[in-house]
């Protein structure tokens, strides 16, 4: 995916983040979200390798190998940050203290089922901390391409891959659209220009309800 498309998705995701929240960002496009949060919004970023309050990347030469994020890259910390072991890092997650988690996905179903950890026989990276985050964060936002490399919809009636968590996803943001999982089903809320509602429908296998007032993101 082109850098500007990735940043466009990240920028839209950043709008979901409000002042005072605790947020965990996954690897890939989710990592970019931090760059798009306005200065006057204060959030505490949680990294499951044991830090609450991660800050921007350090300047070159100032990296501390003992201070990294869950992706293994050097970070800094903000005022009020804390360090803890992995049991505590996941205790926070399981107890429901993470307000928002932003993850990538291979497939999402219209009921909010998430598949993002294994393609049996092909790619078996393991679930890492994704099961805890998807199942226990108050709000789960998925950022991904709308279709896979074969051009097939990644948003399905039912996931075909083994699940990470059932009925866990709240919002899906793709290069084409923003959708919300609701009690009434999956609702198309916004489209990313130049795509149209028809483009989105054509590329979505799941049943998609169209919101009364679909916004276009220019």
């Amino acid at each position, binding site marked *: 995916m082109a850098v500007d498309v990735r940043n466009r998705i990240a920028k839209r995701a950043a709008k979901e983040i409000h002042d005072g929240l605790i947020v965990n960002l996954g690897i890939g496009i989710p990592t970019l979200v931090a760059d798009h949060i306005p200065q006057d919004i204060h959030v505490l970023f949680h990294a499951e*390798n*044991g830090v609450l309050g991660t800050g921007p990347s350090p300047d070159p030469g100032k990296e501390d190998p003992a201070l990294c994020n*869950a992706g293994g*890259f050097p970070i800094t910390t903000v005022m009020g940050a804390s360090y803890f072991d992995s049991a505590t890092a*996941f205790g926070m*997650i399981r107890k429901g203290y993470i307000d928002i988690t932003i993850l990538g996905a291979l497939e999402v179903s219209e009921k909010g089922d998430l598949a993002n950890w294994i393609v049996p026989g092909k790619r078996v990276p*393991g*679930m890492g901390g994704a099961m805890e985050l998807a199942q226990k964060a108050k709000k789960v936002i998925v950022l991904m391409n709308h279709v896979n490399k074969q051009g097939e919809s990644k948003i399905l009636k039912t996931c075909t891959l083994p699940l990470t968590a059932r009925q866990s996803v709240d919002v899906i943001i793709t290069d084409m659209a923003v959708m919300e999982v609701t009690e009434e089903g999956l609702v198309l809320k916004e489209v990313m220009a130049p795509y149209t509602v028809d483009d989105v429908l054509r590329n979505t296998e799941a049943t998609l309800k169209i919101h009364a007032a679909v916004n276009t993101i220019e």
Partner: protein
Amino acid sequence: MKQAITKKNKIVTMEEALEHISDGCTLMYGGFGGVGTPPTLVQGILAKGVKELTLIGNDTGFPDIGIGRLVTAERAKKVIASHIGSNPNAGRLMTEGKLQVEFSPQGTLAERIRAGGVGLGGIFVDVGIGTIAEDGKDKMVIDGKEFLVETALTSEVSIVYAKKADSLGNLVYDKTACNFNPLVAMAGAFTIAEVEEIVPAGELDPECIATPGIYVDMVIPTKGVNWKWAWQ
């Protein structure tokens, strides 16, 4: 003034430490993507030629970083971890049938290790219910809510990395290099700590000790990281 207890000095050489790590043993290790994995002990295990290991830890590092070096050199027959994605050799060896891999969700893995370290038989967790992570596991209903029974994990030998140790084996960790280390230290039948700095007993602030020395059998000084980090 308190008298420092010095009757047992746990500081040893790498050679003495490596006597406890042999073919076929269950080896638990601290670290997250190699951060907080003891580099000198990994090097020593490689050089000694130890093989057929069962490794238990968060991930399989990177191909040339952390515990990943042992995986890459095909010294492990089995790994229990939450993630192997950053070390393609682990996935390749698994596909070739040379490495058995058992996945545990990361928080569940941490608690299973902690449970093993504090004398529990297992834990009840609802993470993974409704996914293949529940396959083969017993379930328990507590107050009307369903949980998986996750068994405790222990090791014959645990290797950890810390910032400082004293001669009693009390350990102080450094930022995110802490991660699984305090849990792994507790879960070992025999625990070896590799540390950046060794001080006499009494020099560490008791408030800052994350792993009491009771859990640590041997301490060796580190020779430092001998790999390049992914970001370098």
